[in-house]
């Protein structure tokens, strides 16, 4: 019996290691290429250790182009989107969770419905609107658009989470003389930390990873965000994979780091509402 259990254990670990390798291979492949000199992609070897090691690709990416500029733009954009998006989503989700009001069900449904309309086809009207608002070629324009596109998903997650927080907590705060706003700010928000972390993460990722809208709205090269800049760079160097790989790593590292640091909230933040709801 014990031997059988040991065997099962080994099989499970073997399977998991295999699956992890499968998962990590593409990422490590990019790491390898980024440290290899320019033309070394011609080798078909599957090895993940570069034959010659060089920092040249990273150097070219960082100093050869307005890369740092793009990086700043993306950072500003992502920070703005996260702040605005989380604020809008938290207030709305709180109302949807705690109040009963006419239009509540319709509102929640309409948020879900927006996820079904092909986003790429909203570009033309959004472009017209943004230019009418005078936000073309400005990071503020992107921030406004990104935070509104991120809202529906965030509201669903947050509402689910708020629903799991007992109403008694606020009620006792209200009885103690706190205002609604205070109860919301000091009682509910701190308790909802996992879900807020998750919505912040998703808003950040929306802004950091978005390409088409940024490419459409930003006109001057210095205003590009990272995906647009990266794409332009890849187009220019056509098949220089070393540069692409180095740039990809530089772009991915901040968002992956953020993701990993918040991942302990993923399970509770995403599913608390759904499981109990």
């Amino acid at each position, binding site marked *: 019996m014990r031997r059988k*259990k040991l065997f099962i*254990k080994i099989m*499970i*670990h073997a399977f*998991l290691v295999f*699956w*992890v390798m499968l*998962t*990590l*291979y*593409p990422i490590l492949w990019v790491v390898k290429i980024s440290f290899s000199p320019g033309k070394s992609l*011609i*080798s*078909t070897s*599957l090895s993940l250790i570069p034959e010659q090691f060089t920092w040249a690709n990273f150097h070219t990416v960082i100093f050869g182009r307005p890369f740092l500029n793009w990086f700043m733009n993306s950072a500003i954009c992502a920070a703005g989107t996260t702040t605005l998006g989380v604020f*809008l989503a938290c*207030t*709305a989700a709180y*109302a*949807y969770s705690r*109040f009963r009001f*006419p239009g*509540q069900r319709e*509102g929640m449904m309409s948020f879900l419905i*927006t*996820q079904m*309309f*092909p*986003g*790429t*086809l*909203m570009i*033309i*009207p*959004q*472009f*017209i*609107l943004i230019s009418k608002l005078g936000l073309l070629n400005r990071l503020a324009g992107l921030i406004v*658009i990104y935070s*509104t*596109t991120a*809202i529906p998903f965030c509201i669903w997650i947050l509402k689910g989470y708020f629903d799991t927080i007992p109403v008694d907590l606020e009620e006792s705060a209200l009885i103690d003389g706190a205002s609604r706003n205070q109860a919301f700010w000091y009682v509910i928000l701190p308790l909802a930390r996992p879900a807020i972390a998750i919505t912040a993460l998703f808003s950040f*990722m929306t802004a950091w990873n978005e*390409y*088409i809208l940024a490419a*459409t709205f930003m*006109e001057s090269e210095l205003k590009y965000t990272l*995906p647009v800049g*990266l794409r332009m760079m890849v*187009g220019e160097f056509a098949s220089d994979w070393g540069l692409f790989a180095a740039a990809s790593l530089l*772009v*991915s590292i901040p*968002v992956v780091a953020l993701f*990993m640091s918040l991942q302990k909230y*993923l*399970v509770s933040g*995403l*599913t*608390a509402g*759904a499981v109990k709801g």
Partner: protein
Amino acid sequence: MIIEGAEFAAHSKEELVGRRIPKDLYDKAKEVGRTRKTVVSWPAPRTISVAVPVTKEGKYVGIVDLNYKTPRYAPLDFSQAMDKALLKIGSVLGAEPDAAAFIDARRAELSGLVQAQKAADARFIRNSFIFIFLLSMAIFAFIEFRVGNLIWRVFFKHRLAYYYVAPATIGMLLLVFFPILFGFVLGFTNYSLLKFKDPIWTLFIGFKNFIDILSDFNIFSYQNFYYTLFITVIWTVTNVVLHVGIGLFLAIILNLPFVAGSRIYRTLLILPWAVPNYITALIWRGMFQRQFGAVNGLLNLFGFPSISWFEKPFTAFMTNLATNVWLGFPFMMVIALGALQSIPAELFEAAEIDGASPWQKFRKITLPLLRPAMTPAIILGVVWTFNMFNIIYLVSGGAPYGATDILITSAYRWAFEKYQYGYAAAYSTIIFIILLSYSVLNIRISRATESAYGGK
């Protein structure tokens, strides 16, 4: 002087790319300036470089290399790009009198068109706002007439709720719902690059776009709606089944009490979710590259010949599928893990005491309790996969000849590669209706089964 090439570049990029330029002309073009083949980058090319053959009285006089910024909001920007391109032709060829005159005339015409277009857009926006305003006033008045000041009382009674909801709602109305509405309206017009100078309300053609799309039954063409729908459904089903299958399987293994280090495995396994998906797509495209791609390298290692992945519909579809499965299983895994962890241990203990086998426990406890968390995740997963633009567009790019395009990439091509905005908008509306009916049906069914299970 005829400027050949530049004219129809507007209508079909493929035609221009496909145009073979004789070698001596190409060499001549090198003298004129930088030459590069057409670079088509994603999604709308930033800069196109084209070698345009210029003819005069039927004879080639040379090639002009044009670098022009491309359609952003195509009607406006394309004309501006053309403007610059034409100017450049003039300067390169030494601006003969007739050429200069032509260019001037063309410039005037184009800037007029741009102004007209801008004005038309502005009017359309304004009129739409007025229309929506009047409509809501009418509805309001109607209700007002029926129920007096009840509305105001309701609003006042719930003012705190509305005050919390207002910021998000205003943002959504302006930047999400209005564009969607605009999209619906556009679907009933034949708005296109060629029509951009006409005010939009002269372009209404009723249901023609929808009829054109839905009544074409030539399913052996890769551009056919039903063919693309078929591919989209296959794409969605295979993806979601694999996402949920792999995710659930991994979650169950990781949740086994005797598996050590499950935290580390979990952390490593959710990495694909964290990587920006356009980067993932470009990486995988590289890995499926015929000569140096890692996938063919692996095949060769086991003695199989290399495959040209993007030349056959089936293999090209597999490249998209592999990429998206890699990208998508961690989400389902995390959801399933959350659901599994929330199942109270007492249930299993009780089942143990009653002598239930592991399979029975899985079948009777785990699966039913996973349902409430997995159902919304699956519905959302279907919607996301159905509209997964980046992967299809960047990995296979629809190759070969649009055989692996799904509905949303098709719609995008109609809008931004063929500049048929009206048609594309109708396409999007159909996508929307399909997804909406799917979700409504699904929610109904899951509600029905939930009550059958005796749940809430």
